[in-house]
């Protein structure tokens, strides 16, 4: 029982990270109809910027996080402004390939600047743990979960109560009608990219602050967040959070019970669990758990 709960906690922490990244996907997809494959690159960029602020410039960690998020947001908005804006109205193939192209440019840039070495981020949490009821909680994991919860709440409040949030919902619902009402679609698109990049950066920093440290492969987690987004539904923020947690739990539980239950499936089977789950969900509910049914069948 303790092992199970311990694994569940690990899954929850991992799932929070997935949720943050998936939320970023959904924000961009909802308002612009683009799935941003470059999210992983933005995540890594945010993490490395956080490292630079906290370690090289010796800025307090609490300040370094928002700074890194803001810088990543600028880069994301810049992508939208310089590249993606030219692609409005192009077929999905072209737009997807553009974002993949951006990812493939961003990753080598990051390794060129920061190198391939594993870096240790100084952070206030270190590897401290708290023990309660026989379960060991990593303080960093608790912070990740707490930060995610706070961000998710802020996210929903933003869309519910601010005029910019309302404008973004309107644009997502019907861009032309929104334009006719005087909403600046340009601003909405730029803000969507900025928000998504900031979310990715936050996910990146919380991951980098962990015991694993910071290495170029950190962006890989964003690819595993795709299944989370599909599971929840492409256009549902609540689904992204739910999907993230489900995928995180599934992955952590598989890893925890690998030796006993999944030894037949080969080493590191937990890495592909998100994709297997995704394929199952696509066969049963192609639009995800909470997504809008708009996948046409012919």
């Amino acid at each position, binding site marked *: 029982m303790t092992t199970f709960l311990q694994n569940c906690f690990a899954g929850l922490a991992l799932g929070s990270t997935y949720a943050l990244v998936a939320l970023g996907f959904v924000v961009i997809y909802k308002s612009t109809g683009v799935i941003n494959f470059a999210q992983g690159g933005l995540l890594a960029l945010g993490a490395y910027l956080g490292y630079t602020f906290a370690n090289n410039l010796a800025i307090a960690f609490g300040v370094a996080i928002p700074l890194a998020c803001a810088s990543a947001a600028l880069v994301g908005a810049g992508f939208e402004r310089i590249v993606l804006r030219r692609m409005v109205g192009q*077929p999905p193939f072209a737009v997807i*390939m553009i974002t993949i*192209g951006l990812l493939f440019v961003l990753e080598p840039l990051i390794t060129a600047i920061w190198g391939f070495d594993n870096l240790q981020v100084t952070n206030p949490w270190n590897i401290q743990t708290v023990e309660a009821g026989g379960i060991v909680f990593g303080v960093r994991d608790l912070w990740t979960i707490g930060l995610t919860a706070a961000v998710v709440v802020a996210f929903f409040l933003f869309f519910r109560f601010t005029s910019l949030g309302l404008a973004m919902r309107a644009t997502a619902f019907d861009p032309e009608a929104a334009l006719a009402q005087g909403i600046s679609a340009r601003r909405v698109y730029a803000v969507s990219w900025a928000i998504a990049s900031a979310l990715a950066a936050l996910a990146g920093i919380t991951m980098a602050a962990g015991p694993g440290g910071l290495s170029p492969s950190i962006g890989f987690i964003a690819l595993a967040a*795709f299944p989370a987004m*599909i599971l929840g539904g492409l256009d549902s923020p609540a689904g992204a959070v739910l999907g993230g947690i489900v995928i995180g739990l599934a992955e952590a539980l598989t890893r925890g019970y690998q030796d006993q239950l999944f030894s037949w499936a080969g*080493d590191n089977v937990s890495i592909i669990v998100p994709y297997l789950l995704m394929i199952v969900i696509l066969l049963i509910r192609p639009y995800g758990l909470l997504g809008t049914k708009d996948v046409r*069948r*012919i």
Partner: protein
Amino acid sequence: MPKPHRNVVRDYAQDLRLFGSPMSKFGLALMIAAFLVLPTVVQDDFWLSVLIYAGITAVGAIGLNLLTGYCGQISLGHAFFIGAGAYVTAKVGGDFGMPFPLWLLAAAGIGAVLGGLIGPFTLRLRGHYLAIVTLGLVFLGEHLWRNLDDLTGGNSGTSVNADVAIGPVDFADLTIFGESYSRNQGWFWLVWALVGLVALLVKNLARTRPGRALQAVRDRDQAAEVIGVRAGRYKIGAFMVSSAIASMAGALFGSYQQFVSPDEWNLLLSIQYIAVIIVGGLGTIFGSVLGALFVGALPALIDRYSDVIPGVQTSVGDSGFISVFALNQAIFGLLIVLFLVLEPRGLAGIWLRIKTYFKAWPFSY
């Protein structure tokens, strides 16, 4: 009736000719001459190997272009099928010792079966969804290749000892009229002959009924269904043919390289193929070959001249700031972005513009 000017096309049959105009006939003759003579002029092993890799890439790219360019289906999973082809060759051509035509067909067959298994997903999913599923396929494949030790040799890889002889003609050890040729020369002829064969096959597929059906499905699948095209059937069919060709490319790749490991079938390979068809031109066979020559040869060239290019790190601890691998990746990414934004029709589009300019000359404006 007087003989028309050569540019006039008077009926559909003329419009559909493969090599109609005198210019394209001349071009074809030029290509065949280059194909026959090139290996005897360029005898350097490095340059021949670059051309061979480009040829293998061209085969796979033509397959991907059929799927993406003609049928409009996104696939990031091309690397999976290429890997499958290589392993089938290691098994069928190497361990079972089957002759060349048989293992090539076996690889194509397995590729078609695998494509047929993935195909049904393309019916329910489109655009973004399909991209993500095929992305998952790369990771599932990588897991399989690392764990199916008997077939793939696990992480340490497996050697591929398939021979490339058709009857008495062994391409790895060619002797014509008493003149013997090196392995790379033989392979050049073999690979580029196959490029020609596959190109002809797909070109014919594209200009006949199924090809027009594919393009109808690409442009608007629901409308295609309404006018009587069985869109679902064509989508699965395109997937099967495309993955069969990809597996053939993988089979050639494995057999030429004689050794393969799971690290090779990653997302970067898929993206490289996509870069090839985007740079070359979506929906054109000629473009796939152009793209393969341009993009497919890049990694080998960068690897060879890495010590000349400033800032490139050739070994660990070198002063350069970017590794050969990272530079390749960045170039693929940059090419994709630049071509999609600035020249969506690719090199084939540029070529077409040049051609039209000279056709209209001196009345160009």
